[in-house]
């Protein structure tokens, strides 16, 4: 299709102009679904821009130009041509363009693709990998994908309506209590991206994000194996491990291979390997972990986890070291 080529050229120039290199930008696509939509966007923007300029110019001419009045007959011709024939054809063509794109946007991933079940909760994401071979496992607020392989997301909600959105890869799909929705994506470029909840879901809706990493297939398989394994506790994390048990963190969290086995809150088995903390709130470093533990409800309003500010600073540092060590 010739127009596709030119649209890509337009898209490319548009990217250059607006410098859209964001981690969460629909205009910097890294997958076929997002790319098709970005293309559609640029076509519509250019076409719409031309129409806008034409209509505005006509209006300014009508009001400000020194001119003779046009006949009523001319007016009827303008209405028929400009408001009926032209838009009917253009809108019809646009509708067909959109309709032809729809099946590929909605199609499920081929059978046998990697399945990832994401559950939305106020205000975090429970992510469950269900690979073809081997056991599944759970993590939170982070999704890792293999480059070039289609992935099938299964989307549900545990409480209110959320919406699962990774702009760089595809459009969004809502997560609705009582229903299971689906989204298939293929990432075509390795890198780090960000996803977010798009449907207002309560107090900390703004802090319900997640990181997305797209790895080369071999790296991905290695990551998969690492995540599947239970937690490994290194010697210097031993004091933190005790603090974890002592302060009852296991009442809500799971650390696989350890005693903590509750699933009310994010699985922490490999929390140290994640890019962010608090569902996209902070980068995952020692300072942020301490802030999170002491001021939980301040940094993330409405959060269900209690703050642990009453814990002695030394024990908190131990705890942070332990969490960071869970790679």
């Amino acid at each position, binding site marked *: 299709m010739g127009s596709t080529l030119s649209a890509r050229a337009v898209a490319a120039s548009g990217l250059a102009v607006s410098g859209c290199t964001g981690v969460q930008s629909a205009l910097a696509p890294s997958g076929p679904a997002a790319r098709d939509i970005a293309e559609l966007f640029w076509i519509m923007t250019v076409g719409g821009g031309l129409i806008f300029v034409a209509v505005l110019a006509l209006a300014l001419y009508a009001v400000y130009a020194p001119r003779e009045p046009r006949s009523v007959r001319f007016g009827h011709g303008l209405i028929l041509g400009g408001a009926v024939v032209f838009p009917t054809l253009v809108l019809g063509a646009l509708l067909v363009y959109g309709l032809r794109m729809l*099946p590929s946007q909605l199609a499920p991933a081929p059978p046998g693709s990697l399945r990832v079940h994401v559950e939305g909760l106020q205000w975090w994401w429970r992510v469950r990998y269900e690979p073809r071979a081997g056991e599944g496992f759970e993590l939170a607020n982070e999704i890792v994908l293999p480059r070039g392989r289609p992935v099938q997301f299964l989307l549900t909600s545990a409480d209110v309506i959320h919406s699962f959105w990774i702009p760089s890869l595809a459009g969004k799909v809502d997560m609705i209590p009582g229903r299971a929705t689906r989204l298939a994506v293929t990432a075509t470029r390795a890198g780090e991206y960000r996803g977010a909840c798009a449907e207002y879901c309560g107090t900390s809706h703004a802090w319900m994000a997640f990181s997305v990493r797209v790895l080369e297939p071999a790296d991905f398989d290695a990551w998969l194996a690492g995540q599947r394994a239970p937690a490994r506790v290194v010697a210097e994390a031993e004091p933190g491990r005790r603090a974890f048990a002592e302060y009852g963190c296991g009442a809500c969290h799971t650390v696989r291979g350890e005693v903590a086995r509750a699933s009310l809150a994010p699985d922490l088995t490999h929390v140290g390997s994640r890019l962010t903390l608090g569902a996209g709130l902070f980068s995952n470093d020692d300072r942020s972990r301490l802030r999170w533990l002491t001021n939980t409800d301040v940094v993330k309003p409405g959060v269900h986890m209690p703050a642990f500010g009453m814990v002695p600073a030394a024990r908190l540092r131990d705890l942070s070291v332990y969490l960071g060590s869970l790679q």
Partner: protein
Amino acid sequence: MSSVDEEHASLWALAVPPLIWATHFLLSYWTAAVWCAKFADAGGSLALARLAIAVYSALALAALALTGYQGYRRHHLEQRAAPHDEDSPESRYRFMGYAAMLLSGLSAIAIVYATLVVLYIRSCV
């Protein structure tokens, strides 16, 4: 001319073409939704629902051709063109024919658009 008297005129006439569109639209939507929810298997074909929608479209367009033609005849009563802005029952009669004709045209466009959908979408996904 008794046919242009107020007793024979009704504002409801203006609602007929858009109501044809509305009926077509709701029927198409319900047919597709109920078919996909109750009769098709997951990822199943739209088959019969598409056929049904095509039939609705044919019927609706035929009905609109009728209302449009009738409107056109009224609009052209005694070969007088728009704007139909005189204070007479004839002018009002022509105006209502004109409006019905335009509404038939708009409704027909909307129905053609809706019919395009089943040309390109073939499954319940």
